[in-house]
């Protein structure tokens, strides 16, 4: 192994021997790309023509006035192609796949966003594409399955384990150990064995690079706080990276689910329920029992519902550089409603976690301050989940009629 990628004791590469050569090849390809000044240029130019980059920063004037505190700015990752920051990572890895000469990509997906993004990348670059998705998620996210299949991907339901995101990751690894000669595994977040945490953060750093420049242009100074939701951690690391060396407070918001005391949440870094462990190829905080078996997690947002978290964020937590908070399902729906009604923006349920914490803290800050929230994805793709969460009666009626139409 060339390099195992540790962040003060977190990370590493706990991989079966059969994959070691494949990881060495990937580490090598990534290092070469990183050291090639044309590569980043190729990447940003692809993202500007394919995915609407740079995404804007929006001044939330009405929310600012309402909270009577800091100026509130929102980084609009929801305006990426396929509706989330996931596009940044998959297009970057797609360019690497081309460099490595591989012809097939595989990916896991939870909410389906990473799966759809990977399927668009595969279509654009002409790769064969297989997406692993837990059966539970598959049922929750049918529209995304529809898009993946239309884009030419094969969607494989994962029937083992808890049948959600972590099980889809295991299944993708099982595919990879069989087909690594032709296949690249496009891991969707800054987790997993080295070099994935570093590589995914590298592609997502485009968010922070843009955001820092944009807010300096708009506001003339740095924000006092930056907020991002944390599932695996890739959108958070992306935006935080732009402010890492600045006197800016960085706040990661995890899924509080039904409350930290309920046990039904996915808070690895701000609850007492997680312990340091090794699974899915890396060392980090995992929600696990005392034997080391992974626990069930819960969040209203499928994209945050994961047992582990980026080893880079575990390190930044211990180093005191990033503060972590939790937002409950209920708070998330309230923040989502407020943002829609006041600003006409529709954050994804995942992203709305960051808004919850920003709204809690805004009244405590002065009008001299400004804050920046990462709207990592758009919510209109979650229409089924959000309509259910709001128990919208007209929507329910519409779905019933639609179903009757299919019976006719």
């Amino acid at each position, binding site marked *: 192994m060339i390099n195992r990628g540790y962040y003060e004791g977190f990370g590493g590469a706990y991989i079966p*021997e*059969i994959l070691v050569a494949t990881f060495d090849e990937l580490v090598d390809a990534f290092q070469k790309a990183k050291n090639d000044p044309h590569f980043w240029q190729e990447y940003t130019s692809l993202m500007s023509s394919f995915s609407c980059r740079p995404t804007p920063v929006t001044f939330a004037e009405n929310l600012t006035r309402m909270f009577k505190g800091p100026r509130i700015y929102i980084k609009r990752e929801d305006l990426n192609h396929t509706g989330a920051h996931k596009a940044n990572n998959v297009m970057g890895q797609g360019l690497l796949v081309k460099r490595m000469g591989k012809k097939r990509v595989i990916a896991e997906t939870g909410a389906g966003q990473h799966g759809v993004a990977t399927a668009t990348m595969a279509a654009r670059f002409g790769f064969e594409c297989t997406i692993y998705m837990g059966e539970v998620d598959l049922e929750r996210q049918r529209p995304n399955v529809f898009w993946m299949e239309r884009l030419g991907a094969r969607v494989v339901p994962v029937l*083992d384990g808890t049948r959600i995101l972590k099980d889809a990751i*295991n299944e993708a690894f*099982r595919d990879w150990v069989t087909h690594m000669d032709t296949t690249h595994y496009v891991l969707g977040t800054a987790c997993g064995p080295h070099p994935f945490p570093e590589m995914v953060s590298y592609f997502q750093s485009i968010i922070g690079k843009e955001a820092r420049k944009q807010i300096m242009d708009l506001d003339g100074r740095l924000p006092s706080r930056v907020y991002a939701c944390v599932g695996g951690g890739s959108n958070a690391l992306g935006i935080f990276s732009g402010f890492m060396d600045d006197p800016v407070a960085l706040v990661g918001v995890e899924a509080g689910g039904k409350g930290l005391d309920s046990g039904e949440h996915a808070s690895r870094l701000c609850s007492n329920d997680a312990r340091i*462990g*090794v699974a899915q190829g890396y060392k980090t905080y995992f929600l696990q029992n005392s*034997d*080391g078996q992974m626990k069930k997690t819960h969040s209203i947002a499928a994209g945050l519902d994961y047992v582990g978290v980026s080893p880079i964020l575990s390190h930044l937590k211990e180093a005191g550089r990033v503060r972590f908070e939790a937002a409950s399902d209920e708070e998330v729906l309230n923040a989502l409603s407020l943002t829609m009604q006041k600003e006409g923006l529709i954050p994804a349920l995942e992203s709305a976690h960051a808004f919850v914490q920003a709204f809690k803290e805004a009244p405590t800050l002065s009008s001299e301050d400004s804050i920046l929230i990462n709207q990592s994805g758009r919510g209109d793709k979650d229409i089924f989940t959000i309509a259910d969460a709001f128990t919208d009666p007209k929507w329910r009626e519409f779905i019933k009629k639609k179903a009757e139409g299919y019976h006719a």
Partner: protein
Amino acid sequence: MLESHIRAERGKKEILLMTHIVLGYPSFEEGFQIIEAMVEAGVDLMELQIPFSEPIADGPVILRANQAALANGATVEKCVDFAQRVARTFDIPFLFMSYYNILFQYGLDRFAAFMARAGLKGAIVPDLPPEEGEDYLRIMADHRLAPVFIFSPSTPDTRLRSIAACSKGFVYCVARKGVTGSDTRFTGELESYIERCRRATHLPLALGFGVKDKRDVDFLRSKVDIAVIGTQTIRLVDKEGVGGRRMRRWRLGLI
């Protein structure tokens, strides 16, 4: 020690058999009967897998056995108690197989001390490459236990040698790409891989992944020291249930 034991047995037989069971599957009691039947039938070594919720190197059969064992309430504490009972009852070498998190949460030192006390001979940890195993290697050595590492067909020669230098007892050669339980083609390609493994180490070689019947074992005879019957053992238990006579016939059928 494990290595000398294997050499002594190999002096008497052309090939040794190692089987694999998942602790707590179908239940601890049935597991005990399976082991009893296998030892009676002449199995030479056994891997006892402590179930883990995320077994990434295992195929569907062993994966589901892991899940079923956990669903039936198999805790690490129950597994180690059971392993101690087994190792003290039967006179063949037993090894633990599990994923690193199980050892890590139990405490590496506590885990190794327990194995030594209970009479287990070593461990196979498929998600722990030697580079990540510094503490593990030191602690296993302190307790005179065998850390068994893994060769794969994609491992280059120089790396085969460095893995062999960390391994004790024997080296586990994975026959092919993929997870446990799929078919392996027993052909010349496999033969040249085994030769490459031989040149990399003086340790005995075990070969597993896809070994399922007499033809496969015959192919491996005099090429490797140990044939590993993993998934096929669990399939047999699933299909035939727990019965000593059938186990005996099965062993005779393989040799």
